[in-house]
């Protein structure tokens, strides 16, 4: 089993939930922002010393739940603060961006880090399409075309042109090219069957998060496997990344208390107004090709929001408890899903950084020695 340490970089200072999306930024305090970035980057660099294989981050817009409008900036910093840990950008929201710019920035991180980039080519959650004013119904096809273009930009030995449906570039030749050959490993989201099939088609690693039901998660993984195999790629366990909100503490009770508070802040404050924007996109666009996937997405978030910690543990939605307890939970999920990689998000909402650090130390000293051999 391999592990990724993931960070959303949440804003921790809101006293009450924003009532409208996008959340007003009038209370943002840059000095506090600087402190948070410093602390978060320190923690992410510390993940290398704790035995994590990857350190991961992602891109979100117009939201206090993630202060990374461009995770490549953080990836760039981490390339200089770490030596061996893989830098997982999980990832750039490709349909919203200029794919050539993504190819260039990812190549820079890969070269600067000595070939440690894991390239997340992600469609993103629905409300991001309002933020960047991109037609949600085009997201899948934009992702498909942009992925092909990015790979071409990384691998084509001579300048080339691209005349596509969404992207047109008369002449492309990026500098630098990535260090990894033929190109960095690609990871795509597979949190629903539609995405899972897409990830398999692209022979990408798959990532899944916000699990509400292990049986549904298993179904997505099966779709991913079948799709990949249909395209000549047999995924290994380490190609399957399961994201989990995680709290490891000295006792089960302590972990539950911290996670409960952090999730409450996350769902009731940070995510409060986002749900309206998500609903708009899901209901008013063809973000999901099939209506049932849109409904499932909305229901999944509502389900997760309504559960208490024990219910979340039971459903396989979180890892929470003492090291021993967490190892058991990992074994169970591994047994159900067959994943060879966990992505642990430990800074949930406003869980104090010292609690997160303690959890990382416990992971290093007590979880990893046993869990690595799962």
């Amino acid at each position, binding site marked *: 089993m391999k592990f990724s340490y993931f960070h959303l970089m949440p804003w921790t200072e809101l006293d009450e939930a924003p009532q409208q999306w996008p959340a007003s930024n009038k209370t943002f305090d840059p000095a506090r922002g600087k402190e948070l970035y410093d602390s978060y980057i320190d923690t992410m660099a510390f993940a290398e010393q704790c035995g994590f294989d990857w350190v991961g981050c992602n891109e979100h817009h117009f939201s206090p739940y993630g202060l990374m409008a461009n995770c490549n900036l953080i990836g760039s910093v981490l390339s200089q603060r770490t030596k061996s840990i893989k830098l997982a950008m999980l990832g750039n929201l490709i349909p919203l961006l200029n794919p050539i710019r993504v190819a260039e920035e990812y190549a820079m991180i890969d070269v600067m880090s000595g070939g440690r980039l894991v390239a997340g080519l992600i469609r993103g959650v629905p409300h991001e*399409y*309002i933020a960047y004013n*991109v037609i949600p*119904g085009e997201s899948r096809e934009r992702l498909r075309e942009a992925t092909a273009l990015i790979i071409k930009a990384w691998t084509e030995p001579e300048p080339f042109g691209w005349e596509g449906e969404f992207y047109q570039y008369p002449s492309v030749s990026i500098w630098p090219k990535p260090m990894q050959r033929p190109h960095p490993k690609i990871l795509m989201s597979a949190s629903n069957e539609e995405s899972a099939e897409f990830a398999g088609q692209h022979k990408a690693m798959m990532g899944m998060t916000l699990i509400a039901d292990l049986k549904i998660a298993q179904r997505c993984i099966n779709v991913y496997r079948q799709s990949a195999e249909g395209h000549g790629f047999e995924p290994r366990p380490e190609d399957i990344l399961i994201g989990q909100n995680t709290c490891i503490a000295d006792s089960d009770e302590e972990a539950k208390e911290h996670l409960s508070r952090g999730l409450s802040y996350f769902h009731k404050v940070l995510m409060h107004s986002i749900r309206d924007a998500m609903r*708009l996109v899901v209901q*008013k*666009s063809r973000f999901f090709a099939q209506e049932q996937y849109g409904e499932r997405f909305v229901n999944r978030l509502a389900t997760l929001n309504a559960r208490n910690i024990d219910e979340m543990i039971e459903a396989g939605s979180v890892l929470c408890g003492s090291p021993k307890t967490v190892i058991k939970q990992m074994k169970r999920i591994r047994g159900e899903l067959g994943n060879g990689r966990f992505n642990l998000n430990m800074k949930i909402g406003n869980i104090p950084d010292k609690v997160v650090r303690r959890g990382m130390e416990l992971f290093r000293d007590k979880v990893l020695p046993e869990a690595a051999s799962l």
Partner: protein
Amino acid sequence: MSDFVEQTVELSTGQVQYLIGGTGPALLHLHSASGPRLSPAIERLATKHTIYVPTLPGFNGTTMHAQIGTMDGLAGVAAEFIRKAIGKGCDVMAESFGGWVALWLAVKHPDLVEQLVLEAAAGMRSRDLAPLPTDPADSERLFHAVPERAPRNPRYAEALPGNIRVAMSYTGGQSLDDALVASLQRIRARTLLLFGTKDEVAPAGDVGRRLKAGIANSHLSYIYGAAHALEFDQPDRVARLVGAFLERGEAFVVRTAEVA
């Protein structure tokens, strides 16, 4: 423009002339202090809306209504106009001075205003901002960022001085309506606040922020390249955004192929 026809309606306070044109759901357009003008933006919106453009009492040489001398009084006229000429509550779009009227309308007659579009609304300008110029040439520069798109209809120019005097008689020369500011929180209609990036008459940094803070369900948008006369400076941008807002409500922020 030729599709618009002039009609009159008898209200309890007096007669009101209005232009009506277009096809689709009703949209009330309340004019600026310059008086009623059919802008290119209105013409574009008329392809999907039946647009009512009343001449507020006193403008364009019409008779003032005896009991009506204030901005909230004009809102009462607009309310009765909606009831009698349109027949039911409708979307309202208003420019500058008309925005002031529309704000009072939304405060006092919330049942008559479904969605509200305010273009650089008047009545919200801080008193400590630099006074507006009195020289017509300076005013022209201030109102129009794209002078070649300014209206050239001689009738508009002819009516302008009288219309400005009438507007002043309603506003009392005030730029900030404290009572209205205190009432903004009563507005329930979903509201689109439009401001030109070059508007120094109703700068968004002052007027827009006051409105955004006061109206709970409001969305502020800048129209790039426009000064105060948004509908003339950037008719395509105004019509595109307003059309999407009126048609799709809160979902107008989700981009669709039609507006791409």
